[in-house]
């Protein structure tokens, strides 16, 4: 069964596009099914079935250096809700995953990559540090496909 990669973000908000770009890079890779998610976190669980192995990639803002990569195993414990997942007003990735946990709708495995954003101003391109972090996350996900 392919690894389901869900890239989360907004193409028009600079580094917030990081998750989407990672999913696009993986779209043609063997062993991967990549989807882009641009709406609220509560509908994340609609992408997976109980037996799926899932990777979610999103930008976050926690005050660390731009491009810093965080990796969480969501099936092992709660996603830190205070990690500053970027979402304009609507429920984000952490809320979506924790709601899925409460409802018993987590997949077999769920890894979350968070990429620390630099700039998320409207209309901006990715910053160099975040572009490099996208490369790093893509390679790391490909390692997981074996």
């Amino acid at each position, binding site marked *: 069964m392919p690894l389901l990669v869900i890239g989360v973000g907004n193409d028009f908000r600079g580094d917030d596009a990081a998750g989407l770009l990672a999913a696009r890079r993986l779209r043609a890779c063997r062993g991967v099914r990549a989807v882009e998610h*641009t*709406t609220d976190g*509560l509908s994340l669980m609609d992408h997976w079935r109980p037996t799926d192995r899932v990777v979610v990639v999103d930008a976050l803002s926690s005050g660390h250096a731009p491009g810093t990569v965080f990796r969480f195993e969501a099936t092992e414990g709660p996603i830190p809700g205070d990690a500053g997942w970027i979402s*304009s*007003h*609507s*429920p984000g990735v952490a809320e979506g995953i924790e*709601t899925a946990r*409460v*409802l018993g709708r987590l997949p077999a495995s769920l890894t979350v990559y968070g990429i620390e954003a630099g700039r998320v101003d409207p209309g901006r391109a990715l910053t160099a540090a975040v572009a490099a972090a996208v490369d790093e996350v893509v390679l790391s996900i490909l390692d997981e496909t074996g």
Partner: protein
Amino acid sequence: MSKVRTITVNALARVEGEGGLKVRVRAGKVQEVRLDIYEPPRFFEAFLKGRTLGEAPDLTARICGICPVAYQMSSVHAMEAACGAEPGPRVRALRRLLYCGEWIESHVLHAAMLHAPDFLGYESALHMAKDHPGAVTLSLRLKKAGNEIVTAVGGREIHPVNVRVGGFWRAPSPSELAPLVPKLETARGEAVELLRWASTFTFPDLDLHHELVSLRHPSEYPLNEGRIVSSEGLDIAASEWERHFEEEHVPRSNALHARRKGGGIIQTGPLARYSLNFDRLPAAIQAAAQEAGLGKECRNPFKSILVRCVETLWAIDEALAILRSYEPPEPSFVDVVPREAVGAAATEAPRGLLFHRYRIGGDGLIKEARIVPPTAQNLRAMEADLRGFVQNHLDVAEERLTLLCEQVVRNHDPCISCATHFLQLKIERD
């Protein structure tokens, strides 16, 4: 003894956008109520100037991620009014279908995820989900049904790309829309269940008499066309909005406050639509509303959750009726020839009346734009609701009163992002 109490909420949760709230009570009287809207101004009306009229639906959709279809609908109707274009009944039906999808999605998000936790004493839908997994699961499915309509007709879930002045870029085929029917038939049962669940909540007393304002259509529940009517007997064409209503700047707010000329407080949105158009609801929906404890008129903003559930049910039935008789518009749009003119339109966004007016040139460029979102029309009503509610509940302890004040604001499902050109709570007591 003079005692000042101050209730302060610096950042309101479970509303769309950024704002705060402050209530000041002195010697047992509410002295000041203010909704501070500090979300930065958006300048949409300014940057529409000089763009082509065809860009308005895509640009204005970006005002809101919850109700982009409303902006698209008001803008295309206004442009078509300006240019004298009439896209015909099939385009009209497809637009109504798309709009129903947005009503379902927006109403269920607010009723189940943002508003219901208030009545059950939870901090958020996530906390509520632990004890009410069935209701949350059902609501997520219901919301998804709305999303799927928007995706099928509009091309994607948010900020749809298929709407254009004159119609649609491409009309979906009947076979593309057919899978929506069984999903909506299931959703209908879920909407009835959601309404029954909400009807078991306890509703604080609050009976308000703002002037209710909504669209009214000769035969339909209001959605994308009709005259603007009010509980005070107003009955005008949409194009006459500016003759009867005005907006003012208030220093605490990056949103304009709208009111009836002459000073009256107005209220738009589900309570207004329902109270002014109960007779336009099909008998089955009327019966469901009455079974849930609603009368023919609803003046208690806490019960707006029930009205949103009723309107969700209506939108599902309307969408099903459109789908069952769907014939694609051919062509999918009519040509709209620019002319020097002014065009105005109002449609019913989930949160209420959304007025757009554009002045366009013979070159097809927008010379002037005016957009009045429902939240801007409801800000004065929200402040008045807070004033009335706090005055009647001065004996309630601070922490509880603060929560109730937030709920008073959430009753209106304010979209601060839309209105900013808005929420946090501060209650000060002397």
